[in-house]
């Protein structure tokens, strides 16, 4: 918190939260999927701002790198490879519009009901100074097995994506 003490942190949080929510709603409701992907990128940039407020600077940078730099670009490639972008006549939502909305509102109401009744720890402990150092140490000591499994998972995802994306030649 020390570096951004000069900012009005609650105000910044409210603005980031409102904008992230706006872009999240846009990216699930816009008709054009390309615009949805761009709104998703904006939402992840704003969410990384929230991570900075939470003193998670490493994760904020990694979020922008992975999501905005890789995942959204991959989605844009998939969008331009599959369909003509503006298909105004085609329905974009299925028949579950009203039941899905009700289910989401019910889930949100349940989550908020629990959230507002649990006595969370009010005070905030001192912030960790060097998050990159500690995250790296934790990754390679306490969570070493999960780290190795994640690398195997990424390799499997790489091979699987190449295999699935390859044009299959029929005999």
């Amino acid at each position, binding site marked *: 918190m020390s570096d951004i003490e000069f900012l009005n942190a*609650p105000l910044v*949080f409210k603005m980031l939260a409102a904008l992230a929510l706006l872009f*999240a*709603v846009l990216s*699930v409701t816009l008709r054009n*999927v390309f615009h*949805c992907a761009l709104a*998703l990128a904006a*939402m992840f940039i704003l*969410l990384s701002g*929230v*991570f900075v407020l*939470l*003193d*998670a600077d*490493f*994760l904020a940078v990694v*979020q922008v790198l*992975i*999501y905005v730099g890789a*995942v959204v670009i*991959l*989605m844009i490639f*998939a969008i331009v490879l*599959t*369909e003509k972008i503006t298909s105004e006549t085609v329905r*974009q939502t*299925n028949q579950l*519009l009203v*039941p*899905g*909305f009700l*289910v*989401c509102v019910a*889930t949100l109401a349940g*989550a*908020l009901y629990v*959230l507002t009744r649990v006595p969370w*720890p009010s005070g*905030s*402990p*001192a*912030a*960790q100074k060097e*998050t990159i150092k*500690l*995250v790296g140490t*934790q*990754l390679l000591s306490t*969570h070493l097995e*999960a780290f190795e499994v*994640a690398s195997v998972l*990424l390799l499997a*995802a790489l091979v*699987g*994506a*190449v295999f*699935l*994306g390859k*044009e299959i030649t029929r005999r």
Partner: protein
Amino acid sequence: MIPLAHYLILGAVLFAVGMFGVLTRRNAIGILISIEIMLGAVNLNLVAFSRFVETSTLNGQVFAVFVMTVAAGEAAVGLALILALYRNTRAVFADRFNVLKW
């Protein structure tokens, strides 16, 4: 200082928005976009807990790194699947993907 509950409320709202997208979108790429929103909301919760509950180990941030890893792999494989299905069915709509049924 922003209390922990505000971050958790933001995470819950983002999760609900993503869930709405997953339930109502027809476009399979749109469904993947909504799933990424849900995973981002979960990451926000993990980071908030690691900031407010247990700062000495940063376990929440390490978990968030793993969630991002899985999300990246899931996006790569999911989009490759959508491309393969598009080649077979010429559609990206999830309700047209009935090739596994017989």
